[in-house]
């Protein structure tokens, strides 16, 4: 079955809501409209307004009510219309949901999914282009996933809904309709916590996730005559699949990290530090990063193109690392 990335997301919610009557969705315009990007299309008609809740514009309520439902045995999908708006629900995520189990000494679980469209490349400007994973990467008690393919989008969302911990699910809006791929008809799950080795290679490891996975794969193909690249698609950001990173970097001796989130304080910094701490003896070159420049997500096309990692910057970094 050929599906787009957003259709995969839509399918995952349809299937999980049909499978488990305790699953419901809360968000702005998720019902009557079917979501600003149509991620929730058809859910209201199929599952009714008690389980597909068009909420007021109130992100803190959306997440907080999700927690309240979770402690009563329900599983709420909390949609942020744009992931940028997650800032308005920040406290409920980091101080309420993430600490719930901990501060109750293990008595409580908090099965909620906070999902929404992240990422740049669609001229969304400052408040419709952000990648907020680093804000939450610092918080124990959370899990963060960021699929790059339609297969993973579906499998990871189903896993997130079934998970008993709060999961932040970052869907990249640039991929919504640009990706179309064959996925199996039947039931499948992509486990949280497992990276995907997208391509084997000997010369260097490129660690990436989300939208840039596709640019990295293109680079690996285009540069195949120059350098043999191994590509890791993290898929889960928290917790990191350190085993996959370690195995690969131990083999190749070189690591490049590519993400669309800003460089300063980004997840790439943590990965680089961990490689430096634990795999220093295996390294044959510096650990490099390609990320968005440290500015806001500007709107005008030349500005946006300047900010986010493009094919050229990825190629340049690969060449630089290959030179060691």
């Amino acid at each position, binding site marked *: 079955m050929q599906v787009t990335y957003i259709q995969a997301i839509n399918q995952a919610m349809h299937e999980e809501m049909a499978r488990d009557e305790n699953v419901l969705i809360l968000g702005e315009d998720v019902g009557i409209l079917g979501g600003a990007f149509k991620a929730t299309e058809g859910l209201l008609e199929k599952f009714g307004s008690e389980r597909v809740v068009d909420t007021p514009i109130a992100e803190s309520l959306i997440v907080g009510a999700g927690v309240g439902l979770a402690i009563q045995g329900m599983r709420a999908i909390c949609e942020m219309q744009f992931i940028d708006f997650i800032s308005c629900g920040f406290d409920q995520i980091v101080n309420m949901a993430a600490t719930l*189990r901990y501060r109750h000494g293990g008595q409580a679980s908090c099965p909620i999914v906070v999902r929404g469209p992240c990422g740049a490349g669609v001229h969304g400007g400052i408040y419709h282009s952000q990648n907020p994973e680093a804000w939450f990467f610092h918080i124990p008690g959370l899990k963060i996933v960021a699929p790059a393919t339609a297969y993973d989008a579906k499998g990871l969302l189903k896993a997130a809904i079934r998970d008993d911990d709060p999961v932040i699910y970052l869907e990249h809006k640039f991929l919504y309709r640009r990706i179309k791929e064959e996925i199996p008809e039947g039931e499948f799950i992509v486990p949280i916590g497992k990276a995907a080795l997208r391509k084997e290679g000997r010369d260097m490891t490129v660690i990436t996730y989300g939208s840039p996975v596709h640019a990295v794969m293109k680079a690996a193909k285009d540069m195949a005559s120059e350098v043999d690249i191994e590509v890791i698609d993290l898929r889960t950001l928290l917790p990191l699949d350190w085993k996959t990173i370690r195995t690969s970097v131990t083999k190749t001796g070189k690591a490049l990290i590519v993400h669309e989130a800003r460089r300063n304080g980004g997840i790439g910094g943590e990965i680089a530090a961990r490689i430096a701490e634990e795999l220093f003896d295996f390294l044959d070159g510096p650990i490099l990063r390609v990320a968005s420049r440290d500015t806001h997500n500007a709107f005008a096309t030349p500005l946006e193109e300047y900010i986010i990692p493009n094919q050229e910057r990825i190629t340049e970094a690969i060449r630089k690392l290959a030179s060691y």
Partner: protein
Amino acid sequence: MTEQKERELYFWLRLVREFEGRVSMLDKQGKIQGGVYSGKGQEAVVVGVCHDLRPDDWIFPLHRDLGAFLLKGADPKRLMAQIFGRREGFAKGKDSFLHGGDFSHCIFGATSMLGSTLPVAVGSAYKFKIRKEDRVAIAFFGEGASSRGDVHEAMNFAGIYKLPVVFVCENNFYAYSTPNELQFAVEDVAVRGPGYGFKGDVCSGNDLHSVMKAAKKAIDRARGGEGPTYLECKTYRYHGHSEHDRATYRSEEELVTWESRDPVERWEVYLEKRKYDVAAIKAETAQRVKKIVDEALAFAEASPWPEGPEAMEDLYAMPIPEE
């Protein structure tokens, strides 16, 4: 009300006061680490709201509602161990009293971002409603927290869906040091209820009869499908915001005025007017509550500290171990 009920209510008022009084004393003796937020003076609110709740109703207490834990059935021993940060506490030492609830008695642990439990209470009430469960959620908050956006977002949602929730505002006139005239431009904050499409009600939080009457109406309304109530209880805390706060921002005269309206003594006066043998009731109750608190303290002191590495436990229900 039967004599038995009236005496039981007195027992609860006394137990809450004795328990909190002991905690304050232990704090002064340096036996408790961390903040202690005494609710002394506000006992009638938690007793009046909680005394008639059912085991499967949920409460969302605030930091000054130690009494609500007791009323809802939490084990005093574990509660004291929780305050001591010991392993037998609800949080197994991971946080102090107010942040760890007791799920076996439907008690939720708050965060320090006061008012943040209201959206959670509302989410729970939404489930009660759609599953047609005959349960209510009681969300406590202070008049200070009434200024927070979470409170607005939660009430607005609860109004739309007519949820079975009671919002109990303990208006004790000070948010730490900030007086009400710097908190809101209204006399009664419950006037906001109708702005969300439900009833606002004000009662005397120092008068158990007044709280019980207003709470019953609100709880009946919630159970009857008539939606939420903004129930404001005017009361006063005798101590500072926490035990280290000397509360110099208010006058001695003001404190004494409120002490003369003491909710526990008021109930004693009521019992006297009912012509019960109050001296005997007082003596018997004092003995009873002292025993409970003594035993709780002995249990807490005997309870072991958690081991350091336990700090890494209970983060995830489904942990993903690193390979």
